């Protein structure tokens, strides 16, 4: 059986900085893969390359066996790969409901002009999704009035609304208050498991990684330094020194 996502030999340099220097990674269907590593290691670059925002200078990426390198973000989304963002990308002048409904509509095709966005079918699906993320009470709040944690969740909800088979999340819990973090992640995992979505997420909080990842990939200077089960990776002294060392107590990561 082929991997859901298969990257081979990805290379990309910004000037002298090698953001990807020969990345080989297979993501299996149904797994939750965490990406950890110091800032500047190229974690976000990997997501950007996979989703078509950046074009690698070398290598291949295949999704479900089909090469997706060089496709636009729009085409890649169409194939079933969605993403969320480190800085939430919301439509700031729309409400939470409208944001999520627009994602639902985007999945169904936006080319209808005679029926409203908040037609019953879209509204119900969006409301249901919002409820699953525990955001019902902010349904009608404008996105620019939300706190960071809520924005993050809405951002992910919009990606989930696209019903992807693979979801890439860039630091899903950064900015979320520590007290709420675990509950939110629980919800997230439940929602994704229910939906049968494969997930790749960049994370700095080792507690989150330890609890939810099936596998962990450690990034270092544009390469995968280590790859394996959470228990093995998180206890690796080399990883502890280079990655976890600069992210004490999980969460607030110091400047690199």
């Amino acid at each position, binding site marked *: 059986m082929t991997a859901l996502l298969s990257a081979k030999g990805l290379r990309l340099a910004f000037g002298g900085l090698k953001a990807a220097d020969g990345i080989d990674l297979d993501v299996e269907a149904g797994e939750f893969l965490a990406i950890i590593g110091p800032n500047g290691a190229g974690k976000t670059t990997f997501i950007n390359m996979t989703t078509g925002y950046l074009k690698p200078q070398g290598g291949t990426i295949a999704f479900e066996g089909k090469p997706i390198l060089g496709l636009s973000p729009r085409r890649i*989304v169409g194939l079933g790969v969605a993403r969320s963002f480190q800085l939430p990308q919301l439509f700031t*002048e*729309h409400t939470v409901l409208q944001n999520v409904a627009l994602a639902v509509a985007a999945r169904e095709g*936006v080319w209808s*002009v*005679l029926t*409203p*966005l908040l037609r019953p079918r879209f509204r119900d699906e969006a409301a249901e999704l919002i409820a699953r993320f525990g955001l019902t009470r902010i349904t009608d709040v404008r996105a620019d009035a939300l706190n960071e944690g809520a924005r993050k969740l809405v951002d992910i909800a919009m*990606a989930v609304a*696209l019903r992807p088979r693979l979801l890439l999340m860039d630091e899903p819990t950064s900015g979320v208050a520590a007290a709420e973090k675990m509950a939110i992640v629980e919800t997230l995992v439940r929602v994704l498991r229910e939906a049968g979505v494969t997930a790749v997420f960049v994370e700095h909080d080792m507690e989150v990684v330890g609890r939810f990842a099936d596998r962990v990939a450690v990034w270092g200077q544009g390469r995968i330094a280590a790859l394996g089960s959470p228990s093995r990776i998180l206890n690796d002294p080399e990883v502890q020194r280079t990655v976890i060392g600069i992210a004490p107590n999980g969460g607030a990561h110091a400047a690199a």
Partner: protein
Amino acid sequence: MTRRSETLFALAGAVLILVLAYAVPWLRFVLTIALAKGLAVLGILLLLRAGQVSFGHALYLALAAYTVAFGAVLVPEALLLLPAAALLAGIVGLLIGLFVVRYREIFFGMLNLALSMVFYSVLEKFYALTHGADGIRLPPVTVLGRPLAGETGEWTVLGIALVLALACGALVRVALASPLGEALAGIKTRETRLDFMGVSPKRVLLAAYVASAVMAGFAGAIIALTTRHVTPALSYWTTSGELVFIAILGGAGSVLGPFLGAAAYELTRVYAAATFANAWQLVLGLVLLAVIVFAPGGIWGMITSRRRAA
């Protein structure tokens, strides 16, 4: 404001226009022009939703007006000329749109301006055909075979303008609340997200651009049928600026804004010109300044904020 009260407001406005046009004959002309400009501004409003300002939509106005002027020689039927002019404006809008929707903000505005100025020059250049700045006079036109002239003609054009205004207004109102309309608004706040949702912002903007060209086309055709004389000044950049001016004056919050703005603009201009013939620009400038500084929601914003307060 709810959909129902907006509808009621629009119908009341339509009745008011008819009453005014009946009571004050010379206002028929001014109101017809105002309705036409309101139609064009409705298109500007669509683009404003996406955060884009076109300083060149006078191009479509002039294109349609000249289409009517030239077309009337071959087919003098207004009910054929009108859609033909709008269609041509739409086709040219599609071709130009394919190019300009790749640009944003000032580049979008400037490219539109540049193309409309090129069209202006063309109208001046092909002077043997267009008589340059002197413009061309419309040959006699008919509606359903009856001559479009005199008082009946004025009423007919006003009626056509009113029906088009109501129809386009309703359509834009519905379209803005549709997924496409909301995606259009998304271009303003977070264009990249649209791409990552599988929606092409360029195509969304292109759809709005073509629609705006068609509406400007309707406007230009009505203006041609009303003034019966078309000149290249219709495509000069100040005409485009005027459309944006009206959009802000009326308020971008509702499809009624463009028509309120256009009526206010035309009446202010007529009034200012009648009172201060050599300083009417100054009066208009002060009005615009006051609206922007004190009532950023435009006239429509003033009306709704009053309602909310009451």
